[in-house]
């Protein structure tokens, strides 16, 4: 390790244990389907393929800052009516601020 450089490459990825924990306890739905957790690389691929980006934070936070092309449907307003504008034939990617 030398001074002047971080001793590791910055990566927002979780460790294998964290990912397994997340998948088992957070992402598995009662019905058995799994919401696929993605990282930046998969996000770019999906967007290039026409995926729809949805920010689920409150409108004020969306107005201040959002990813290019994202639409805003706050979590508290997610229902059949507000999601009617989404194309069911294309993938949907949701995001908020971070892991929390």
């Amino acid at each position: 390790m030398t001074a002047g450089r971080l001793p590791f490459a910055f990566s927002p990825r979780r460790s294998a244990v964290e990912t397994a924990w997340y998948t088992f306890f957070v992402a598995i739905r009662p019905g058995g389907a799994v919401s696929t957790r993605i990282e930046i690389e998969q996000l770019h691929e999906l967007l290039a393929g026409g995926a729809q980006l949805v920010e689920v934070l409150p409108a004020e936070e969306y107005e201040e800052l959002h990813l290019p092309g994202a639409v805003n449907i706050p979590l508290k307003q997610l229902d059949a009516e507000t999601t009617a504008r989404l194309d069911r034939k294309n993938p949907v990617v949701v995001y908020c601020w971070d892991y929390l």
Partner: protein
Amino acid sequence: MSPRAACRLHTLGFDRVYDYVPGKVDWLARGLPVEGSKAGEPRVFDRMRTDVATCALDTPISEVRERLEASGQGFALVVTSDGIILGRVPRSELGDDDAATAEAVMSPGPSTVRPDTEIAELRRKLDGRGLKTAVVSTPEGRLMGIVHRMDLEAAID
């Protein structure tokens, strides 16, 4: 929040739902473009330095001192092998016992800021606490870099 939103979309009949859990913080940390009323405001990531002196818990003080001298920084950060910040070792706390370890002299749990923090906001915080430097980390506590108050001045002025 986004996992719940993804789940809700599944219940609404959407079959191909993906959750970009790292979210806006991750996007901003990579310097990617954003839209919105505050899109043009400078953020910590824009002024962050990565020339940080780091060490492990068991690094001898003699080695920490060498790294500090090489970096020119006033403190070293104690991190795990994958970069989680454990403590801070100011140059003034190194002492004379070169055989001691960083763990023995570190201040645990240093405060950190997120890379997406607006520079003006961070400057107010640093001024309020009389600090000259902020440590930048991911939401998980992984070290990304540091930012100096003087660098914030340059960004705002």
